[in-house]
């Protein structure tokens, strides 16, 4: 589980690490949104260029990103097959029994793969260079306007950061319970589907009870340290925009203009 690259933070000192998390989140959102409309090769080339630049700025090795893509490989191949074999149109390039590959189908499949890979890599670049706490405070900051319509933004952000904090712990615990049950003869990998699903239950119950106990303890620990409400607190981590953010914003702005221009010409 530890070799999962997507969603992981790896400490570093490259340029992108110094960009405010809010900027990074906004750029990622804009990028993903624009990709939905990409339908020409020049547009994809531009998007790929922008991604390549971003990846370079993370200062991480390409091999790392390759490891990030690998676990979703099968998903990619599956979508490619769907697109490839079930898109109609002419000319037909290949025909065998009920399977046929058409040129629009091929192009569509390539587009889908590219889009998928670009989105995955862009989000990886975001999480790789931004600690979870920073993402939580960035989301809080970005959602602040929603306070006006009584959305409990501070509570949600605190919940998110505590949840993120407990993910590694719960993973360790799952592993522990799994080993404990295995040593008692449980098997998750053999037997009928029903039998296997039944084997999940003795896994979930101890996990659930453990998590509940944790929650109660944590509530006590928080209360003892003076927690009353998520609203009346100051913040240790203060987000602030700097020169890097201006550069990032200008770069992204240029990309957006070029991209829209390309779509326009088409």
């Amino acid at each position, binding site marked *: 589980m530890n070799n999962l690259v997507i969603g992981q933070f790896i*400490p570093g000192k490259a340029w992108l690490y110094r960009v405010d998390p809010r900027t990074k989140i906004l750029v990622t959102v804009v990028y993903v949104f624009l990709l939905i409309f990409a339908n020409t090769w020049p547009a994809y080339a531009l998007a790929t260029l922008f991604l390549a630049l971003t990846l370079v700025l993370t200062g991480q090795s390409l091999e790392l990103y390759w490891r990030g893509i690998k676990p979703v490989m099968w998903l990619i191949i599956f979508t490619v097959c769907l697109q490839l074999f079930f898109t109609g149109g002419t000319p037909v390039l290949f025909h065998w029994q009920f399977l046929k590959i058409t040129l629009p189908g091929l192009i569509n499949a390539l587009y889908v793969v590219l889009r998928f890979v670009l989105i995955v890599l862009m989000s990886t670049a975001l999480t790789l260079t931004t*600690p*979870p*706490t920073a993402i939580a405070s960035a989301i809080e900051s970005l959602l602040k306007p929603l306070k006006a319509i009584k959305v409990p933004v501070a509570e949600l952000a605190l919940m998110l*950061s*505590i949840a*993120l*904090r407990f993910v*590694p*712990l719960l993973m*360790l615990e799952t592993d522990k319970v799994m080993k404990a049950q295995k040593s008692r003869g449980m098997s998750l990998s053999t037997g009928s589907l029903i039998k296997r699903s039944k084997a999940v239950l003795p896994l979930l119950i101890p996990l659930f009870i453990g998590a509940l*106990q*944790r929650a109660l*303890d*944590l509530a*006590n*620990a*928080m*209360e*003892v*340290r*003076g*927690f*009353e409400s998520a609203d*009346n*607190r*100051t*913040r*240790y*981590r*203060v987000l602030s925009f700097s020169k890097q953010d201006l550069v990032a914003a200008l770069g992204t702005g240029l990309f957006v203009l070029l991209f829209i221009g390309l779509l326009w010409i088409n």
Partner: protein
Amino acid sequence: MTNAITINNLTYGYPDQDPLFHDFDLEVQEGQWLSIVGHNGSGKSTLAKLILGLLEANSGTISIFGQQLTIETLAEARAQVGMVFQNPDNQFVGATVADDVAFGLENRQVPSEEMPKMIEAVLQQVGMADFADREPHTLSGGQKQRVALASVLALKPKVIILDEATAMLDPAGKSAVLQTLKDLKNQYQDQLTLIVITHDMAEAALADRVVVINDGQLAFDQRPQDLFVQGQALKELGLDQPFESQLSQALPKAPNQYLTKQELAAWLSTLKD
């Protein structure tokens, strides 16, 4: 001397259970190092939760520095009393060591720009300054407990309660935490009251005073050296003597008083003449 904590006629039982405490009294003087021992389920953790207002007494009073604990005075009381719990993982709120120490400061609305200095200072006190950016799952149990202690220290409490804070630690982690406690006590002297709940008699022996809780009452209330010579009585309460006491009682010629490990070694070395 003033009392840090005064408990009078306390009665408490969990809902639908027999009362754990009945007319319970306890006074803890300011600057004292008190150990609370007792068998499993004797109510030690419950007592700590009552003092911090995490549970509400059925009757009787608890006062912190003379101020009676009520809903109105709860926040004030908690500003003076800090607590370290048993499980190192379940009290780590922040995503990193520094964030965890910051949590209490954020609740107290300490201005952001003052926090880094304060965090650095308390991490220094517990010897964890080099770990400020580490995530909890990369720390040992003993390190996590020292962070928990730092998080409490950051709030400048006058009383710190530790509820079996070393119970889940290996010997090295345990002695690091205990050494930190000794250092803190040396530094703050009478400004800091320590209440240490423990099953470990060697840990209890560090205190000025040990109380044994049994059947919701104080069964013993003595200096550790006086308590530990009562081997049989302790056994009846489900407690062990420290190893040094067991050893010296097994030796027929040993003086009938509590000797620390060093004193016992010194005495043993006089035997060869």
